[in-house]
C-alpha cells in the first residue's frame, strides 16, 4: 500500500507529461501536414519578431534608461561641519541672500487693486489688497484674421497678453470705428473724420484704455460674454464694468493671459 501511494504522484506527473507530448506531437504533425497552418505559424513568428525589434528602441530602451543605473547616494548630514567658521559665514550669507530675494519677489505683487483677465476661459478676476473681490465672465479677442478680398489688407483680432496698465478712464465713451469695422460689414471706408465713424452707446457706460487702441468696455451683446468674440478689446457685463471702473484707477495693473 505504501509503495502504491508513493508512486501515485509520479504516475500522475508522467501521465500529464505524456498527454502534453502527445498533444505537442499532434500539433507538429498537423502543422507539417497542413501548408496553411505552417504559413500562419511562420507569419505569427515573423510579426512577433518584428514587434519585438520595434519595441527595443521605442519601449524597452527608454524603460531600461529609466530603471537601470545608480541614483546618487543619500547624503549623511555632518553636524561637526557647522563648527567651521567659514561654513557658518557661508550659511549666514545665504540666509541674507534668501531674505533679499524674498523681499524682491514680494515687491512684484501689486498692493493696489488689479485686474486679471483669462482670455482662454474668458473670465476676469478683480483683486483688492491681494484678495479676490469679484470675478465673472468677459469677452476677449476672437483670433479672427480678417482679409480683404484682394488680400492687400488684413487685421488680426487678438487681445494683447502680459502686464498692461490703465492709461485712461472714460465715461459714456463714443466708439470711433476703425477701418476694419467698415471692411467687416462690407461698407466703403469713409474719411478719417467722417460722422459715420462715430457710434454712440455701443461701448456701455464706461471704458478704460489699455493703450494701442485696446479698451475694457461694456457691450450690447451680453449673451456673448464668456466667448472669444471681440476685435481685441475686453468686454464686460454692465454691473461688472461699473465695479471694475470704480475700483481701478489710472495706472492700475491689468494682467492678461
Amino acid at each position, binding site marked *: 500500500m505504501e509503495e502504491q501511494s508513493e508512486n501515485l504522484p509520479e504516475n500522475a506527473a508522467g501521465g500529464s507529461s505524456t498527454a502534453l507530448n502527445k498533444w505537442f506531437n499532434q500539433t507538429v504533425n498537423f502543422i507539417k501536414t497542413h501548408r496553411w497552418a505552417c504559413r500562419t505559424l511562420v507569419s505569427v513568428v515573423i510579426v512577433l519578431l518584428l514587434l519585438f525589434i520595434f519595441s527595443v528602441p521605442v519601449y524597452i530602451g527608454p524603460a531600461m534608461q529609466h530603471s537601470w543605473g545608480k541614483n*546618487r547616494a543619500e547624503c549623511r*548630514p555632518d553636524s561637526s561641519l557647522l563648527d567651521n567658521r567659514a*561654513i557658518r559665514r557661508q550659511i549666514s550669507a545665504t540666509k541674507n541672500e534668501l531674505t533679499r530675494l524674498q523681499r524682491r519677489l514680494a515687491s512684484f505683487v501689486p498692493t493696489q487693486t*488689479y485686474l486679471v483677465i483669462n482670455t482662454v476661459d474668458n473670465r476676469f478676476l478683480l483683486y483688492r489688497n491681494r484678495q479676490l473681490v469679484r470675478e465673472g465672465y468677459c469677452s476677449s479677442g476672437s483670433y479672427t484674421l480678417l482679409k480683404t478680398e484682394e488680400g492687400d489688407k488684413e487685421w488680426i483680432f487678438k487681445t494683447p497678453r502680459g502686464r498692461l496698465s490703465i492709461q485712461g478712464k472714460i465715461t459714456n465713451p463714443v466708439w470711433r470705428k476703425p477701418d476694419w469695422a467698415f471692411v467687416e460689414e462690407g461698407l466703403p471706408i469713409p474719411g478719417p473724420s467722417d460722422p459715420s465713424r462715430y457710434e454712440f452707446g455701443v461701448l456701455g457706460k464706461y471704458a478704460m484704455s489699455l493703450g494701442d487702441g485696446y479698451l475694457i468696455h461694456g457691450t450690447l451683446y451680453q449673451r456673448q460674454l464668456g466667448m472669444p468674440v471681440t476685435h481685441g478689446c475686453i468686454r464686460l457685463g454692465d454691473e461688472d464694468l461699473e465695479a471694475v471702473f470704480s475700483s481701478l484707477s489710472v495706472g492700475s495693473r491689468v494682467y492678461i493671459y
Partner: protein
Amino acid sequence: MNRERKIWLIIAASLLAIFIIYYLVMSVSAVSRTVNDFDNAYFASLEQKEGDTINLCAIPGYIDMIRDKAFLSSQVKLAESDSVGLLINVRDSVIQLLIKGLPVRTVEIDEYDVSPFFHRANQEAIYSMLSAPLNITGMQATFMKNPVSVKIAPRDTSQAVESVKPDTTDFEAVFYTLDTDRNIRFFFEQQEDTIGADRRARFFFDLKDRMRNASVTMKAVTRLKTPPYVPYIKIWIPKAEAKIIYRAIPREGMIVLTQ
C-alpha cells in the same frame, strides 16, 4: 530548410541579437554619460574637481537653502523679464502662470514623472542650473496654440454676417511638450482619460515622441557614438488647465523649475 539557409538564419539572428544588446547598452550609458558631462561641466565652471569640494549636502540644512535660493533667484529673474512665465514646483506639486512675478493661475499637479537624470546628477549642479529660468525653444501639441480663423471681408452689407466663433479645443485631446535651452523637455498631459479619442491621442502622442527619440538614438548608435539623452519631466494635470497654460505661454517663454 537546407543547411546553408539555416546557417545564414543563425548568423542573421546572432547579428540582430548583438545589435540589440549593443543598442540597449548604449541607450543606458547615454543617461550616465549625460549626468557625468553635466556634473563635470559644473565643477569645471567652479575650476575645481567634485572631490575637492565639501559635500554641501553634508552641512545640515544647507542644500535646502541652496535649492530655495536657486528657486527664488530664478523667479526674480523671470519677474524682471517681460515674458509670461511658467513656474513648475515639482516638490509641492504646483504649477503657476506668472506675469511679472504675479501668479495669475495656480494648478495642482495630479501626477508627475521625473527623469532619472534628476536623481543621479549632483544636486548642487542642478540647483545652479535652475537658478535662472529655462527658455522655451520649441513646442509641440496635439491642438492649435492660437486657433486663428480666416474671414474674407464681404463685398457689401448683404454678405456681412455676425459670426460667433466656438472654441473647438474643448473637444480636442490636450497633450504637449515644451523643449528648453538647457536640454530639459517638459511633457504636459491631460489627466482625463475617459473616452477612446483621448486614449488614442495619448497613445499616438507618446509614440510620436518615442519614435523621435528612437530615431536620434539609432542614428548615434549606428555611428558608434553615445546617443544624446534629454532629461524630462512629465506632468499630468486637468485638461482645461493644461490648455490654458499652453495658450498663455509665449513661444519664447520662460520656465522656472524646482524639484
